[in-house]
C-alpha cells in the first residue's frame, strides 16, 4: 500500500463571531482512502464537497485535526524528520490555477531550477535536467520555453510547467487538482493523455481530483474512484463498476445529470432521481437524506455505516435494498 488515510477529520473555522465560540465547518468527516502503487485513483464530487481539502491533506499541505496518514507504511506525522522530508518530496501536488501557482516575476527556468537545486542538491547540468523535464511533459523544444514568463504561455502550457515542476522531485505520487479546468477544450484531452502516459511509462501513481465524471472515466478507466459529498466519501470502487452500476443514490443522480456529447442520448434522458434541487445538510445522519428519494426517518439519525460488498464501499443504510440501477437506463 503506497498511501493510506484512516478516518481523516478536518475542520475549518468560520469567521469568528465577536462573542461566543467560533463556528466550525466539518470539511472532511472520517474519510478513509487507500492507494496502491501504480494506480490511478480519481476523487469526484461537486464544489464544496471537500475534494481539494482531501488533496491538501494527502500532500501534507494541511494537517488533519484527527486521523492517520501513512505513506509506504510510515505514519507521516509521527515519523523521523528525514522520513517526513522523503514523504514531502515523493508526494507532489499539481494545482488547479496554473496562473496563480507560478511566480509571475520568474521565468520558467527560474521556477523550475530552485526546487531541483534546493532539494536534490544539483549544481551542474541543471539546464539539461530541466530540458529533459520539459520534454517529458511535451513542451518541445525546451529552449523555447526556458526564458519565457508565465504570462507568455497558454493555460495548457502553464499546466504542463506545473507538472514538470512536480516531476522534478521524481515523485511516487502526484495529486492533480482539476488540472484541465482552465485549459481550452481542444487541448484538454491531450493533457489527460499525458497523465495516463506518465502513469503507464514511469509508474507514477496518480490521484486525480475532478468534478467531471466523464473526465474521471477517461483518466482512470481501469483505476478506482471515490465519490464525495458534503465532506464524506459516499461511494468507492472500481471506476467502471461505479459508472456502470452506481449504488449510492447520489452517484446515480450525478451520473444522470452529466451531459453526454450526443444529442440522441441527451435529448431523451430521464431526470435525475432527486427530491430536492438545493444541496443542504444539517449535519445529522446521512448527508444525502434531504435530496434522497429513498430516505426515511432512520436515515436522519445517528451515524451511517459503510456497507461493503465485493470491493465496493457505499455509505448508505439501504445500499442492499435499493433497486439496481444501470447506466443503460439512460439510453432509451
Amino acid at each position, binding site marked *: 500500500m503506497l498511501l493510506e488515510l484512516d478516518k481523516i477529520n478536518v475542520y475549518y473555522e468560520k469567521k469568528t463571531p465577536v462573542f461566543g465560540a467560533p463556528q466550525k465547518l466539518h470539511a472532511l468527516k472520517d474519510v478513509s482512502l487507500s492507494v496502491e502503487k501504480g494506480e490511478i485513483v480519481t476523487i469526484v464530487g*461537486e*464544489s464544496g464537497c471537500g475534494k481539494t481539502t482531501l488533496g491538501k491533506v494527502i500532500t501534507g499541505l494541511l494537517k488533519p485535526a484527527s486521523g492517520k496518514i501513512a505513506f509506504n507504511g510510515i505514519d507521516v506525522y509521527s515519523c523521523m524528520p528525514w522520513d517526513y522530508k522523503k514523504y514531502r518530496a515523493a508526494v507532489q501536488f499539481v494545482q488547479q490555477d496554473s496562473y496563480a501557482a507560478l511566480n509571475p516575476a520568474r521565468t520558467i527556468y527560474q521556477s523550475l531550477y530552485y526546487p531541483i537545486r534546493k532539494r536534490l542538491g544539483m549544481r551542474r547540468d541543471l539546464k539539461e535536467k530541466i530540458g529533459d523535464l520539459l520534454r517529458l511533459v511535451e513542451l518541445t523544444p525546451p529552449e523555447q520555453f526556458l526564458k519565457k514568463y508565465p504570462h507568455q504561455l*497558454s493555460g*495548457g*502550457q502553464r499546466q504542463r510547467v506545473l507538472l514538470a515542476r512536480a516531476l522534478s522531485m521524481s515523485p511516487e505520487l502526484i495529486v492533480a487538482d482539476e488540472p484541465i479546468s482552465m485549459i*481550452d*477544450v*481542444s*487541448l*484538454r*484531452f*491531450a493533457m*489527460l*493523455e499525458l497523465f495516463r502516459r506518465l502513469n503507464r511509462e514511469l509508474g507514477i501513481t496518480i490521484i486525480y481530483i475532478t*468534478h*467531471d*465524471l*466523464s*473526465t474521471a*472515466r*477517461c483518466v482512470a*478507466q481501469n483505476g478506482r474512484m471515490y465519490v464525495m459529498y458534503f465532506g464524506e466519501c459516499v461511494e468507492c470502487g472500481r471506476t467502471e463498476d461505479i*459508472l456502470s452500476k452506481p449504488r449510492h443514490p447520489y452517484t446515480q*443522480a*450525478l*451520473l*444522470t*445529470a*452529466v*451531459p*453526454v*456529447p*450526443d*444529442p*440522441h*442520448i*441527451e*435529448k431523451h*434522458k430521464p*431526470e*435525475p432521481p*432527486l427530491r430536492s*434541487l*438545493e*444541496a443542504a445538510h444539517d449535519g445529522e445522519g446521512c448527508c444525502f437524506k434531504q435530496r434522497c428519494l429513498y430516505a426515511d426517518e432512520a436515515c436522519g439519525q445517528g451515524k451511517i455505516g459503510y456497507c461493503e460488498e465485493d470491493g465496493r464501499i457505499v455509505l448508505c443504510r439501504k445500499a442492499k435494498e435499493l433497486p439496481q440501477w444501470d*447506466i443503460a437506463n439512460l*439510453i432509451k
Partner: protein
Amino acid sequence: MDNVLQFEGVSIEYKMKDVSIRAVDKVTLPVVRGKITAIVGESGSGKTTLVSGILRNISSPGEMVEGDILFRGKDAPEVSVGSLDKRALAAYRWSSVSMVFQASQSTLNPLMKIGEQFYETAYYHGVRQPYKEYRSHIAQLLESVRLDAPRVMDCYPHELSGGMKQRVMIAFALLLEPEVIILDEPTTALDVITQYYIFRILSEINREKGITMILLTHDIGVVAKFADYVAVMYAGRLMEYGTVYEVFDDRLHPYTDGLIRATPSLFADLSKMEAIGGEVPDLLALPEGCVFAPRCKACMEICKRERPQMHAAEEEHFVCCHRFAEGTDAAGTR
C-alpha cells in the same frame, strides 16, 4: 425561414495603438425564431464579442467595422441594430433582447434587495405601477425559475447560493418579456446537478413562452442537451452551422469533428478518442488561408493559401472548408 436575428458578414475589430485584432471575421449567421442556437467555441474564438454586437455593447476599443445585424421583432419591420438611435436603442435593449452574463452572480447589486433590483429596471423601462403592486409580477417570474419567491425577493444577493443567483439572473432576463435571451456560459462554476436543473428551466421557458435563446458555451455536452442549432466558431470565424443532429451525426468540418472526438463522454469508446494537436491560434498572427489549417489533419495545399468560403451542404447546414468544396468531406479523415 423565420429569423429573429440575422448576422450579415459581421466583423468586429479591437483597435489598439499600432495593431488591430479581428475578434470576429465576416460572420453570417441566422438565429431562428423560437429555437435555441448554441455558439460553440473556445476562449478567444470571438463568441462573446459576436453577441455583444446584438446589444451594441462591444467593450471598448472594439468596433463593428463591417456588416450588419438585423433584428426582426414579432409583427414589426426589420431594423438594423447598428442604425438605432439612442432612444430606440434604450427601448430595444432588455425589452427586445436581454442577456444572462458570464459570471452573472457578480452582476447583481450587493446593496439592493432582489425585488428592488427588478423593479428598478422595470421602472426605467416605463413601468409606473407602485412597487407593492408590481411585486406580484416579480414573484411570478421568480416562481417560474423554481425559487421561493416571497423569501428571495427580500433577500440581498449574498444570502443566495450560486445556483439561486443564476436563476435570479434568468428571471431578471425575462422581466420585460424579451423575444431573445442571450446566455453567456450560464452554468460555468455551477454543479452538474444544478446545471441540469437550470437547463431544464430554460428549456421550459423556451417551449412555453417561445423565447428564442442564444447559448454561448464551450461544453459540447451542454450543446447536445440543449441546442436546436449549433454554430461552431474558431479564431473569430464561423466554421460550421447546422441543426444539432446534423452537426453531431454528419459533421463536415475537421475542427467540429476533432472537438467532439476530444470531449470525454460517459458512453463513447475511449480508444476512439483523439486529441486535437497544436496550440490555440494567436489572433495577432493568424495564418493566411484557413485559420484551422495548422492544426488540421486533412489540410491540403489550397488550405494554406486561400480562405475557404461558406458552402451549403443541406438547407440548414453550412460548412467553411475547402475539403467540402472538393467533394471529399472531413468524414474521409475519420
